[in-house]
């Protein structure tokens, strides 16, 4: 994590342009949305996933890449309609399912982001290709994940 006094700036590749802010929720492992994230509550339901039980709603969701069924694109669309979607998505390497989901779900998304620079709880501001990271965030983050990954 970086010091709160000096935000770091990262630049990514725009998959879905837009502006958003929120606290980071960082997964060391890929996320699949279909069957693994509950679109009604925003909770990650995949058994054994490092973020199992975490809520993605309103967070800047950071994970290496997507996985799982192609129907996952529609899950992101549904989350947008249900108000449970993440505020933004940051990936290391985007793949088709999440990218299409972000476009049809109107969720700002970047990839080619070095996720080692971001920790769960950091405050993130996304503006098109720019990502600003403030350590610890503006808000005390009750979702902070302390697992040893």
């Amino acid at each position, binding site marked *: 994590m970086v010091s709160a006094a000096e935000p770091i700036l990262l630049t990514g590749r725009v998959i879905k342009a837009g502006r958003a802010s929120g606290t980071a929720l960082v997964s060391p492992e890929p996320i699949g949305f279909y069957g693994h994230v509950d679109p009604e509550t925003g909770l990650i339901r995949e058994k054994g996933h490092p973020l199992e039980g975490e809520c993605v709603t309103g967070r800047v969701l950071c994970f290496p890449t997507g996985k799982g069924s*192609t129907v996952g694109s529609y899950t992101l669309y549904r989350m947008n309609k249900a108000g449970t979607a993440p505020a933004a998505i940051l990936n290391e390497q985007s*793949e088709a*399912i999440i990218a299409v989901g972000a476009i049809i779900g109107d969720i700002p998304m970047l990839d080619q982001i070095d996720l080692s620079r971001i920790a769960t709880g950091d405050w993130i501001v996304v503006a098109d290709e720019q990502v600003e990271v403030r350590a610890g965030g503006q808000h005390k983050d009750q979702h902070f994940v302390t697992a040893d990954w």
Partner: protein
Amino acid sequence: MAAKLTSDERDMLAGKHGPGVQKALEIVVALGKIYGAQDLVPVESVQVSGVSYQNLGSAGLAFLREWANDGARVRVPTFLNPAGMDLRRWQTMGIDAEFARQQLAVIDAFTVLGIAPTCTCTPYLIGYEPGPGAHVAWAESSAVSFANSVLGARTNREGGPSALAAAICGRTARYGLHCDENRRASVLVEVSCPVRSVSDWGALGYMVGQATQSQVLYFQGLEPDGVDALKALGAAMAASGAVALYHVEGVTPEARLAGVLRPDHTRLAIDNLEAGYRALSGGPTRIDLVWLGCPHASVAEVARLAAFAEGRRFVPEVWITTNRPVREESEMAGSVAAIETAGGRVWADGCVVVAPLRGRFSTVATLSAKGAYYAPSLLGTDVRYGTWLQLERAMLTGFWE
């Protein structure tokens, strides 16, 4: 934006053709960006997946309606993957009325988008045969494999929304199998055992798909006796692996091209098919469903079942799934009557593994390696996979021998 866009495409992306077309181009451009495309390429036809309401769900249906309301319409010939039921005889099939209502609403939404409701994974059996070199955007994995390999057309494995986006803007991003250099084989598969029946082709495909995943293959030693053999081979490889293109020496159109086999290729030797048969078959011997037509049956496959059915009575349920045109042709030939008189069913439009049938059957017998691969997870059944003779016995006795 790395890919070069034409002025027409830039207009689409800027919303000058309406929000529906804009969204379609956004999807195509994003995929091009992710996969490093230099530009977009016009597509001749599209096959859309995500048609069964079981896969699409209420979110997918809402999205299709919204896209249609945004003025999106397909601009190239487009057809649909199988639905979760026979669109006309769903009641006879035992499909719940609420599911049927939603499934028909999905078909209506596709119709508003300008798509004729021809639901099939074998569009190439009913006249949609893109020629060698044609760029298309197809989604169903066995259809993708057939189009690329047997017809020499060019398509990536599209997802439901990306295929539909291609249909709406008439383009796809030029990457992957649209490009010459990615169509060369990286694995030489040397088959030294006989491969004769449909179940042999499926067992071979299952084994090779498992071993090679998404690589491009070059087969030596195969003599397929027609389209149905290659349909079974490709479907199995696309299920157990993600094979989207294979070449067969002396058979498929690109196999004779210079340099089709990359110099740094690896080798895979197959000298018997037992491992494939063993992996696909297991569980109880009592059979409650015999299922043919995965991928959707050809007229010849329906006729073969009809010839066996003539004058006989089936003990378990016997279903063969196909598309509407094949069913109609088979009806005129008398095949449908022969099968249904014996107690079997010829379903159109649908597919067993995307239908809401979980819990209905306990053990399915099939000649389809793809069906055998998916039935345990999607239907919750055990599966017996074997030869046509074993299947004949199962149809007459209800047991697997």
